[in-house]
């Protein structure tokens, strides 16, 4: 696409809006993509020049994130969430219907450039699916009726801003509130308490609370803050809130950001004071674009109320502000060091550790990265003290955990429980009593069967970042595993060999078995690759990518064995299909022009 002078003016404006700051490259490319529906080569050249960075960097970042494209997408770019829970609500059928009515092929832009439809990883609307995105904005509860109306709106060219509001309603669906969701925090009250109590004793309270990271790994929060605070040789320190929430089935951070944003920002501000940071960032997953404006409004409100900026709550020595940065479709950017890379305007590739972000984080400076829920809890602990929090939970897991429950149950949504609660209790509360199995912690967690429902929520037994998916008897375990395995192959960043190649091998091997072309040796092979990917991958993504396979192989071996053929060997590709081109071109269809799949 040749770029006109007016296009170049638009690009210059976008760059200026972002202060020509190369760390904001992902943000800039988001704006370019939404304006031009792709990132044309000529604009890459221009961006490189205006930001004084390599053209290769612009291209590399463009080609890394799934929300960017080098070929034009439709003026209406629709993505359908491909999470297993969306599948269970009929998303695949809805997508097929949508494509049929619009006359588009998934992944391709309609010839008139009006519309494109594709699939995307879980959009975090699991309890109100089938869900999707249109030009980045979340669509919920997609029904055939809605599809009909969307088709009209698209064909009429009605701008998304004029589409019916109800298409975009995102509900909180909080069914059980406990410490974090049930305590009202007056904006600024935690900050006042903190200064009254003193920064050191505030950190002590966090330590006493026993708060551990809510994003998955469960590292002690006070310890992390302390390491960062004590890191030497820095020019500045940073607070980063990880709102990437990419683990399929997780949507509790969305609710916190939608309805508890003050609490989250207050937690970040507390952290800023404790570690001595002046700048904080919230890295919001691209799928939650709809939250960008409201979050900025809360930030503005806090600035007006003297809770952000300089002179916070009248203290001339305390200055702190927060900026929202948005991702562009990459699960790996939830990994803290990949997130930092992304914030620096690069591909989201996990760094080598050590050093850790607490000493060498954003811009190589000491940085605390915490999950949204961790900050929300920290704000309350600063207000109410450590004992208030640690009274709930178990010895090793203090306090409460917010779950996002989706799948086969009567009341999916948000449930906050003290650690130590049994699966059976949770299932009873949400009406999931017919469950055959649960996926705890998302695809990277584990799959447990009905005989394990007395197990409890907690770092010592069943940890989860929040994802809690319920499957009843109707569901096919292997289809679930296949969905997860495809997810990892799609999201692998490609840095290290075992994950880059291994996740694709796992995907192909599992597809082969599910399609009925696998023998005993194929199952052994699947196990072998799984163990290698788990043992040798560089980061958490690869190290957990085989969990769905390994945890179900252990519990439901018969599900796999049922699919196996008695034969010892069959090709993993369609042998007869491999003759199709030659058949067509030679016009032959005789017996010799075909091959059986098995000997």
């Amino acid at each position, binding site marked *: 696409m040749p770029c006109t002078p007016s296009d170049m003016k638009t690009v210059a404006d976008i760059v200026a809006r972002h202060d020509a700051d190369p760390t904001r490259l992902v943000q800039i490319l988001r704006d370019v993509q939404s304006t031009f529906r792709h990132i044309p080569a000529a604009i890459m050249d221009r961006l490189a020049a205006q930001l004084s960075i390599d*053209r*290769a960097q612009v291209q*590399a970042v463009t080609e890394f994130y799934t929300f960017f494209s080098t070929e034009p997408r439709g003026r209406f770019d629709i993505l359908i969430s491909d999470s297993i829970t969306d599948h269970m609500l009929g998303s695949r059928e809805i997508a097929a219907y949508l494509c049929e009515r619009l006359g588009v092929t998934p992944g391709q832009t309609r010839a008139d450039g009006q519309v494109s439809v594709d699939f995307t990883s879980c959009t975090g609307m699991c309890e109100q699916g089938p869900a999707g995105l249109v030009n980045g904005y979340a669509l919920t509860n997609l029904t055939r009726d809605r599809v009909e109306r969307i088709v009209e709106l698209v064909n009429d060219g009605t701008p998304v801003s004029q589409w019916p509001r109800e298409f975009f309603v995102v509900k909180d669906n909080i069914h059980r509130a406990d410490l974090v969701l049930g305590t009202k925090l007056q904006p600024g009250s935690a900050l006042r308490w903190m200064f009254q109590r003193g920064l050191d004793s505030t950190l002590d309270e966090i330590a006493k609370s026993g708060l551990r990271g809510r994003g998955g790994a469960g590292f002690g929060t006070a310890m992390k803050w302390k390491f960062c605070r004590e890191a030497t040789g820095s020019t500045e320190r940073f607070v980063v809130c990880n709102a990437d929430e990419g683990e399929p089935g997780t949507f509790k951070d969305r609710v916190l950001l939608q309805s508890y944003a003050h609490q989250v920002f207050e937690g970040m501000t507390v952290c800023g004071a404790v570690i001595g940071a002046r700048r904080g960032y919230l890295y919001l997953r691209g799928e939650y674009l709809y939250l960008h404006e409201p979050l900025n409004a809360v930030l503005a409100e806090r600035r007006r109320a003297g809770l952000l900026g300089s002179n916070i709550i009248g203290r001339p020595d305390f200055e702190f502000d927060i900026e929202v940065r948005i991702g562009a479709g990459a699960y790996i950017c939830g990994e803290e060091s990949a997130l930092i890379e992304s914030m620096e305007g690069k591909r989201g590739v996990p760094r*080598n550790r050590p050093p850790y972000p607490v000493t060498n984080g954003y811009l190589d400076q000491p940085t605390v990265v915490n999950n949204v829920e961790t900050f929300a809890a920290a704000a309350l602990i600063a207000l109410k003290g450590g004992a208030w929090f640690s009274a709930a939970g178990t010895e090793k897991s203090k306090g409460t955990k917010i779950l996002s429950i989706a799948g086969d149950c009567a009341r999916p949504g948000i449930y906050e429980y003290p650690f130590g609660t049994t699966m059976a209790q949770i299932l009873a509360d949400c009406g999931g009593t017919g469950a055959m199995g649960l996926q705890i912690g998302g695809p990277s967690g584990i799959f447990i069967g009905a005989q394990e429902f007395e197990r409890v929520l907690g770092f010592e037994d069943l940890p989860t970042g929040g994802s809690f998916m319920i499957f009843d008897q109707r569901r096919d375990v292997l289809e679930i595993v296949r969905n997860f395995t495809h997810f990892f192959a799609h999201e692998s960043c490609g840095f290290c060999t075992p994950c880059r190649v291994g996740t694709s091998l796992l995907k192909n091997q599992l597809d082969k078995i599910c399609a009925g072309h696998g023998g005993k040796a194929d199952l052994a092979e699947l196990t072998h690759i799984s163990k290698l990917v788990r043992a040798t991958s560089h980061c958490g993504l690869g190290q957990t990518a085989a969990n769905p396979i390994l945890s179900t192989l252990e519990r439901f071996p018969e599900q796999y064995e049922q699919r196996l053929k008695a034969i010892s060997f069959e090709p993993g590709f369609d042998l007869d299909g491999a003759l199709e081109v030659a058949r067509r071109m030679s016009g032959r269809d005789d017996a010799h022009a075909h091959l059986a799949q098995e000997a």
Partner: protein
Amino acid sequence: MTEHMLTIDGQRIPFTEGQTIIEAATAAGVYIPHLCHNPEFKPHGSCKLCTVKVNGRNCSACTFPAADGQEVLNNTQELNETRRTITQMLFIEGNHFCPSCEKSGNCQLQAVGYYLNMLDAHFPFFYPSREVDASHHEVMLDRDRCILCELCVRASRDVDGKNVFALSGRGINSHLIVNSTTGKLKDTDISVDDKAVHVCPVGAILIKRKGFEVPIGERIYDGQDIGQVSLEHEMPIVEEAEHGR
């Protein structure tokens, strides 16, 4: 000064503060298989061939800091099998037809395959479509053989100061790109004397008209295995760095 010590396969190995496990090993004459690592450049840690067990946990020897009392396992059957599988993965994700490759006999990927007694690539081949860039009059880029080690990226950035190469894309679609508007080598300022042109461990970056110059039998890995060659070449580099520390 007390001497720092760790053990590799039971053998006591001294190291200096700040060294990685592979540096300590190399200095002591212990070969740990590696591909993306080259002691002249910043450690990278992507190929995972150098996977060792440190106190029971898998680590990349090329990035993991050496520490007192570490018990490292390196030359075990289990680890070598793992490394062989990883090597096979590198073969099947690209297009490696050694008989027609100018690098054959001098190629580290191939040599590691020999070292690990890899007789076949085991997995189904991906046979990807990758672009060959023959635009430059002296330097050739055949992406079919690229193993994404980023040595050329590091060399061009850190030594040549040119940033000619970068990795792009994601996952299995990751690929090497060239930093020019056309994406072609001819439109960069790369020159045949650049470090980046000489660090490729495989036959992806080649100097034109130099192919098949050394007869079979006299190529680097015809007579010696990569363990010997690597130590001979890298020990002095590590030692020099050690003195510089």
